């Protein structure tokens, strides 16, 4: 118990020193309640039109990406906000099913983003999930914003402990962080503007996935 408190204090202090608010997992840990909330969140995401998966171990990520990518036409990949180990895991999983994949580095000043658009997969770090509505919170950093918006296919990753119950749980986050902006993604881009027929894939991703992990992503 004492060690757990020390650990939480360490995470909070580290975040404070970096000028960030602590993530939900830092104060909650990934316990069974968090896992259940994670499942509830994924169920809602599924209803919203996301592909969904829950993985307990980093190695299991590979099989989810291989399975999903088998159905997608992907030639390039961009990853934002994930560690080198996870990047490598995802890239290896993809080349196991798609022989030719280019991993694109997210440049600071891209003049033409077309390269990132068609036949492309964006993988990004989700700040928090909202269980009640199946929403993925993406903070306004350049990489995550692009990776979750421009490519044809996108996958967001978050830890089970980062799922909150509803929007109101975000109030403190919004007040603590001096954020320029934020987006809550609750499904692939869609429209019903022509005869109210629902069509997926307008200006944003055509397919979107979300993976909740039972392990810490930033280790």
């Amino acid at each position, binding site marked *: 118990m004492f060690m757990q408190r020390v650990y939480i204090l360490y995470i909070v202090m580290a975040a404070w020193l970096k000028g960030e608010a602590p993530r939900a997992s830092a104060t909650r840990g990934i316990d069974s309640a968090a896992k259940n909330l994670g499942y509830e969140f994924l169920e*809602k995401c599924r209803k*919203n039109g996301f592909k969904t998966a829950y993985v307990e171990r980093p190695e299991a990520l590979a099989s989810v990406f291989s399975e999903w990518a088998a159905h997608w036409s992907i030639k390039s990949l961009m990853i934002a906000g994930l560690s080198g180990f996870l990047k490598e895991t995802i890239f290896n999983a993809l080349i196991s099913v798609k022989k030719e994949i280019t991993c694109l580095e997210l440049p*600071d*000043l*891209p*003049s*033409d*983003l*077309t390269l990132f*658009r068609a036949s492309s997969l964006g993988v990004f770090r989700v700040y928090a999930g909202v269980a*009640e*509505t*199946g*929403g993925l919170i993406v903070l*306004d950093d*350049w990489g995550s*914003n*692009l990776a979750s*918006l421009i490519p044809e296919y996108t996958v967001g990753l978050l830890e089970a402990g980062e799922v909150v119950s*509803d*929007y*109101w749980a*975000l*109030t403190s986050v*919004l*007040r603590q962080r*001096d*954020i*320029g*902006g*934020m*987006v*809550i*993604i*609750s*499904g*692939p*881009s*869609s*429209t*019903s*503007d*022509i*005869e*109210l*027929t629902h*069509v997926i*894939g*307008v*200006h*944003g*991703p055509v397919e979107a996935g979300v993976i909740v992990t039972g392990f810490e992503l930033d280790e």
Partner: protein
Amino acid sequence: MNRGKILQVLSNAREIDTRWRSMLSMTEKSRGAILSLPPQYLQGLLAARQKTQENLATLLEKTVDSARRRGCQVFVAETAEEALRYIVELAKRRGVKRVIKSKSMTTEELDLNHALSSAGIEVVETDLGERIVQLAGQRPSHIIAPAVHLSREDVARLVKERRNIAVDPSPEAITRFFRKDLWQSFQEADMGITGANIVVAEDGHVVIVTNEGNGRLVTTMPRILVSVAGIEKIVESWEEAFHVLRVLPASAVGRDATSYITVIGPRAMSRHGQVPEYHLVLVNNGRLRAGSEVWLKEALRCIRCAACLDICPTFRVLGGHIFGDIYTGPMGVLWTAITRDVKAASEIAKYCVSCSLCLSACPVQIDIPLAISRIKDASGNQTTRERMLTMYERYAALGSSFPRLFNWLQGSRITRRLLESILGIDRRRMMHRFKGGNLYKALGERYLEAQEADVVYFPDTYATFMDWGIGLLAVRVLEANGYSVAVPKTAGSGMPSIQYGFHSKARQIAEKNVRMLKSFVEKGSKIVCTEPTAAYCLSEAYPKILGSEDSKKVAEATTELVALLATEGKPAQRPMSHSANSAIFYHHPCHSRLLAKGRPSEELLKRLGYSVSTIDYGCCGIAGTWGMRVGVEGYLISSEIGRRVADLILATGAKEIATESSVCAQQLRQFTGLKVRHTIRYIAEYLGIQDRDSDALNF
């Protein structure tokens, strides 16, 4: 009234069918989603929006302060012209060549596209529906589905004409085309312009809700970003903003959340290598003035969900290019009064038929029909025929004194033509027949002079003069349930005066009825009505028109008779001997929806063993005397609704129809050809009360 345009719309059955089905489906989805929300979300939303309504000036100041603290460049535009000047000059100063926009009704209100184009700046709408209407050179016909009036073939034809590309007329292929076609605009635009669904006063953030992803691209790609917000979009805190975010998508599209909720504020960097400029333009344009108008200020609560458009019977037929100015449909009338003037609003107010379905659908309880009625009143644009229709009760009283003469007049082709040219009653409208005599005579003095009773029966015009058999049955059923009954002489409810905007007359009628009923209410009597519109007037309209304590007391004591029996009645068990096995369709009158949750009549009929089915299609399209009015003034639009409703009812295999509204009965009988009976007749039949005065020609 633009007769030519209306006739043109009415001649396009396919367009009406598309809109009718779309709106019906939107209403159904929205209703389901709203019902599944925890009640505290709706209560929280109402409280938040009431706070905005009452404190708009203070919240505006707070927003300006906090947005500036965050680094926004804030401009408060008192008028549309000021807002336009600011944005156009900014674009010119920064050398902007192309602007991309996400959907924004406030910029439509300002006519921003025209102002930018006149300054030589290209404007590209990026919301799919908005882009389609932009290419068509039209304005949005619906605030959240701008191109709902166009079919897939229309859009494919438009793409061929304007972009010289042949596209398959399927929503999927058209969407793919626009995804590709607009990409270059996103990449090359210098300035992005968004609207706002919410502005959070505590920190100056702007929130937009979208589905297509264009809102995100507009806020991400250009080097300059401008958000244009009507000041009524302000809420004080994030807690309040979340209430809007939970209810808005449910009420608008029947979902828990839209695909994207974008929180906009000054960004740290852009792909252009510099800190992007962010401007917030807060538009007053009549909103603060509306806050001081008792009958308009409720409109400031509006969250633009469009539930009032989708449920509106005339909007479903006419669409927003006729029933609308910049803002369309029922709420469009109020927003035209706020952002333009009462005269402009009164031009579209005539398409409101006072069915009140918009009030029942509004998540922030704006009394749209009563506000529209006041707009009609303030404009002074009412016609002589409308004034004559407010004398409906006198006509009914005369008819009951000379039934043979009036029934003959109503049946003769020549006199119907005369009625049409003088009173404006369409000769194709099937009319109720007069029975002769009236309820007060039939009941006798005992009921008329009673000073105390458990229940006071308020019959309204139809059950007093036209088919007083319903009134008699009502009294007998109440007595069979153990209630003592009084039937004091009251005036008709005065609904035509409210409907056509004659408020001083409506006020006189309301005062008279409240004066008559208050002594009973003070002694603990309940007031019951067999006509839903009468119950609506007593419980909803009178307290708002009079504002007196007496009217509020009367309102609290009022209920529909069948609703009372459904909750308190104890009908004795008797053997069923009649049409219990024949399939009955229950039609839920519009005004009943405001008075009780669910459908108590349908539930009661089922409890009594009747085989009842129903479909919630909304209004049957007659709306009192409106559907009787000649040609495009009423009947032609009413019959478009009536025919579609009849098709739905007949498809259920029903053999007869139960309802409580006398005018709905008129419409349903005319278009289904089925027998229509007041619900009280089924209850009386169940109780074994003989209906000696039933007239097969009436309901």
